[in-house]
């Protein structure tokens, strides 16, 4: 495969387009597309893939089996899309070997969908692409190719208008026009802070320098978020194309993708994509025969959340300890090795080719007044359909949780959702209807964050969750500055005390004082935002703190030190189930006699409680 000229790229796109179009309609050949993102593989997608291979072979069926990235239906992994001529494309969930056997037999051979595994709606309605339809709550711009194309095939990316934006930027637009377009689109950084992307680019473009850099932030440190992983795994070229566009615009020739080492598959897919792009002359010297040269390399993180912070990230790329430095000067002016550097988040990047390709007017028509476009969320926690979703800005939390997420697991009561991870705050029931954008989330003490959305139910204790977040921030603090290094630990210790029933009302005041000092005097965003979960939960769930402090009770029954399990004599029938399950063997009693728990040994694991069919065990 040789390097391509602009002409050749266009021809290739036309040819491949027909192929891809085929599969979007009902198709003429049999295709089985297996979702092989990390979580798909974790759920056994590779076995599923093999099973299909065997099944097709044994039935002598001529069909194609391919892979794709995240379809967004993570709760039903492994997921598989099946295309058979004459039938609507269908998505199957939880497809193991047995399911594969049935799908081949019933769906492919007998042309009857396998109801036990199939999603009700046709595939085209689930992977909604961008056909706008108010009944469908999702809109896929960033995830346009995820779960659709084979991420290991540059041709499939090209067929879906891939690299068309780059072409346009290289041959038809000036740098100022590109920046103008982004500005009109109103694109704001998806890494958390929501800074206008066009401004960053403009700063860097306007600085004189012999060298400039483009950096993609794929550190995705927010625990409970995986939008960026899925994008890199499912559509790596969109990031490469966007970075190259930025290179051309600001005058940089080298890009780096900083990605966490915990994402081996994403790393493979990106490396593979870089190789392909180089082969096609879409990276490297004289791209598409123009005078512009640009290349991209990967740099791996090594387990430090703070390295998502941009100055720490740059230090880490330079091979150093990831300790933030003060801004200003901002990286846009003085970044990697002291050179002007554009840093954007994966999701921000993935938006850009579409904005250039379809125009700013299209993009800015989506979203709210202040916040344009869509947002990808990793919807997890106590939610039925946990998964990767993309919604227009302005969607409400209620729509996300109930319409898309299918409501709370086990029919429990919604308590709160946390966005922004350890930097964010809780969104409570009363705010379920506020439209999501940067400003409104901030106004209620939360933040957009990078896209982790964790749903909590009545069994989750707010003190416990806050303690969890603080533990995270303490563990991940780089230790450079006193407010964060010492303040964070002090907050954690106070929360720990409260969760053990040893807190006092003064502790609440201290938390507030500490939060103020950390917010104002910490050097970087980690320390500045670490107290957010504290302030937010104290604000909305003060009574829960008070219950721990005054009544020494954990209303959610989560804080183990405030919890005991006891057997109600009248209800116990002596079935011994609890004694058998107790991991520390602290339940005694003869068969058919009342059992008893030795409180001094009990580790409060709750297994007996779950096991007792007679509701004879009391938790409280």
């Amino acid at each position, binding site marked *: 495969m040789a390097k391509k000229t602009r002409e050749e790229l266009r021809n290739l796109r036309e040819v491949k387009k027909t192929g891809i179009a085929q599969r979007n309609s009902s198709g003429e050949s049999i295709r089985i597309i297996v979702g092989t993102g990390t979580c798909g593989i974790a759920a056994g997608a590779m076995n599923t893939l093999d099973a299909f291979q065997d099944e097709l072979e044994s039935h002598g069926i001529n069909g194609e089996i391919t892979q794709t990235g995240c379809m967004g239906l993570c709760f039903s992994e492994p997921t598989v899309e099946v295309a058979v001529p004459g039938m609507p494309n269908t998505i199957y969930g939880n497809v193991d070997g047995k399911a594969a056997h049935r799908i081949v037999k019933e769906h492919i051979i007998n042309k009857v969908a396998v109801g036990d595994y199939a999603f009700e709606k046709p595939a085209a309605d689930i992977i909604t692409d961008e056909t706008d339809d108010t009944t469908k709550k999702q809109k896929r711009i960033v995830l346009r190719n995820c779960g659709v194309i084979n991420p290991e095939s540059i041709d499939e990316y090209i067929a879906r208008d891939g690299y068309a934006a780059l072409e346009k930027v290289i041959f038809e637009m000036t740098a100022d026009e590109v920046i103008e377009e982004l500005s009109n689109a109103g694109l704001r950084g998806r890494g958390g802070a929501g800074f206008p992307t066009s401004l960053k680019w403009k700063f860097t473009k306007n600085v004189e320098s012999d060298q400039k850099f483009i950096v993609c932030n794929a550190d995705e440190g927010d625990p409970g978020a995986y939008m960026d992983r899925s994008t890199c795994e499912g559509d790596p070229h969109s990031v490469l194309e966007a970075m190259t566009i930025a290179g051309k615009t600001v005058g940089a020739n080298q890009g780096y993708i900083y990605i966490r080492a915990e994402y081996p598959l994403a790393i493979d897919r990106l490396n593979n994509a870089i190789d392909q792009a180089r082969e096609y002359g879409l990276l490297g010297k004289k791209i598409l025969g123009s005078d512009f040269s640009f290349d991209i390399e990967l740099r791996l993180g090594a387990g430090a959340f703070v390295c998502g912070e941009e100055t720490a990230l740059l230090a880490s790329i330079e091979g150093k300890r990831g300790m933030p430095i*003060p801004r200003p000067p901002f990286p846009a002016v003085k970044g990697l090795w002291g050179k002007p550097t554009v840093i954007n988040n994966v999701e921000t990047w993935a938006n850009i080719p579409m904005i250039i390709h379809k125009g700013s007017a299209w993009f800015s028509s989506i979203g709210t007044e202040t916040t344009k476009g869509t947002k990808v969320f990793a919807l997890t926690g106590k939610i039925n359909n946990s998964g990767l979703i993309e919604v227009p800005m302005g969607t409400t939390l209620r729509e996300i949780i109930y319409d898309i997420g299918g409501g709370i697991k086990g029919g429990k009561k919604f308590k709160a959702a946390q966005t922004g991870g350890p930097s964010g705050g809780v969104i409570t029931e009363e705010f379920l209807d506020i439209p999501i954008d940067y400003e409104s989330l901030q106004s209620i003490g939360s933040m957009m964050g990078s896209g982790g959305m964790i749903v909590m139910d009545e069994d989750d204790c707010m003190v416990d969750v806050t303690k969890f977040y603080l533990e995270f921030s303490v563990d991940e*603090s780089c*230790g450079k*500055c*006193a*407010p964060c*290094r*010492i303040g964070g630990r*002090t907050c954690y210790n106070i929360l720990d005390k409260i969760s053990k029933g040893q807190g006092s009302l003064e502790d609440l005041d201290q938390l507030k004082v500490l939060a*103020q000092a950390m917010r104002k005097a910490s050097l970087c965003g980690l320390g500045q935002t670490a107290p957010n979960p504290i302030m937010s939960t104290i604000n909305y769930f003060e009574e829960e703190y008070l219950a721990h402090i005054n009544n020494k009770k954990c209303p959610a029954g989560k804080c183990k030190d405030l919890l005991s399990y006891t057997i109600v004599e009248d209800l116990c029938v002596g079935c011994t189930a609890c004694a058998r399950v107790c991991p520390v063997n602290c339940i005694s009693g003869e068969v058919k006699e009342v059992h008893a728990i030795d409180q001094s040994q009990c580790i409060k694991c709750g297994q007996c409680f779950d096991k007792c069919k007679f509701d004879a065990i009391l938790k409280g």
Partner: protein
Amino acid sequence: MSMIKCEINGLPVSVPAGTTILDAAKGVGVTIPKLCYHNDLDAWAACGICVVKVEGSPKMLRACATAVGPGMKVVTHDPEVVEVRRTVLELILSTHPNDCLQCGRSGNCELQDLSADFGIRDIPFEKRAPEIPRDTSTPSIVLNPEKCVKCGRCVLVCQEMQNVYALEFIGRGDGTRLAPAADVTLEESPCIKCGQCSAHCPVGAIYEKDDTKAVWDSIKAEDKHVVVQIAPAVRVAIGEAFGYEPGEILTGKTYTALRRLGFDAIFDTNWAADLTIIEEGSEFVKRFAGDGPLPLITSCCPSWTDYMEKFAPDFIDNFSSAKSPQEMLGVMSKTYYAEKAGIDPATITMVSVMPCTSKKYEITRSDEMFASGYQDIDYSITTRELARMIKQAGIDFPALPDSECDSILGQYTGAGTIFGVTGGVMEAALRSAYYLITKEDLEQVEFEAVRGMEGVKTAEIDVKGTKVRIAVAHQMGNVQAVIDQVREARKKGEELPYHFIEVMACRGGCIGGGGQPHGATDEIRALRTRGIYTDDEKSKLRCSHHNPEIKRVYDEYLGEPLGQKAHELLHTAYTERPLYKK
């Protein structure tokens, strides 16, 4: 340079672009408290004590690390800012042992001062002072991690100023420590004992190893004849401990104080500096005349020799074998002086007062440090330790009369005194080398080219038509460039860039030594330097070869410079010391 106009607390300010808020505030009489910032270093911006409000910024900004911008409106003090600073300070104190009474920095500690200024009476937060053992492995400095406030200064000093990388941040979060890497002790680390970390530490977390008790014991011991010497740089800095301006020359008072402390004989290292010049100057002349190898490199700074033995052993042959003045005086006291005074050298205790922590290491660094048959120097204490002894003895230093030092190892020339500053050894050597080569004295003894704070100073000196190329480097980190230049020329077989090189490990030379009173900045170094040059200018004799006591010692005892006796007593050797030998 373009000027920036902005506003601090409503006061109009106009400062050059790039000025920090901290410095700009100083200009209008506003002091912003700070802890981690030090003038010598790039702002590390760690502590968060110096935060200020800047209009338009939601968080507070660090005054030490933020340059003023046009039209910027800064508020340095209002109840909210002060409250935040106080909380940060209380947090720092909550992890600090707060045992000022057992601390070498009490009365002179940046954290203690802050605490006093903020009027801290209680620490509301849970106390969590870590218990970590001290590192006492080197003869020079002690690391007490319990007191460390993680300001990062020592690491920046050791790595960026000194290029040694003995210390590094280890671990992260609230487990961060400042320590040698790979779990070795400081002694096993690349540390060159310069003590610059201790001079820059704002608190009592790194300090000189205290040898004053041993000195007191010797003074008290009936059967000891206790001899003391003071180094050039001590006299212009000791006053700082007693309220004098830096740079005040207090030689006479120091002699008196030493006498009152109970020392039996008081000598001056400056005398030995003159002796060093004769030996080293002769060595240079000999090598320059064709014996080689060149360049000749000065060796009177033990941190520098340590650095070379560790990082540049390919330069061993280039080092002057002449001992440092401290050691020369030591060996001469236990030989020549003992003989003249009829004292059994076994009963002599030799104490040196140095601006330097490294001198504590030098006194046992090799076999040649025992050339008298005894350990030539028994104890080396720093300027800081001497000041403490003076205070402990109840001596009212400012009230002391001047006095003279004792004869035969005391009288010195201006050349001896300038050893205390960067370029001084070179200048002193040139004054005498000129004479040794031409048999004529210089009319103009000052060599401006080797003076000043430039990290590396180079010059070509005309010695009656012969060109001598010289380089002077100070602050260890500046040396590598010179070494590399020579290596490069060697590799390519080109003519050497220099014939003679002076190196001092500390910024500004010994006046900026690791054992000097705390708080040195370039301003203070400049004042101390001025003091040294004034001492030189006031001297009647300004060249070492004019020192009559030096002449006498050669006549009566040593014979020829570089002669056999001189060689036995006054010269040493170097050996390669691989890093991390554990």
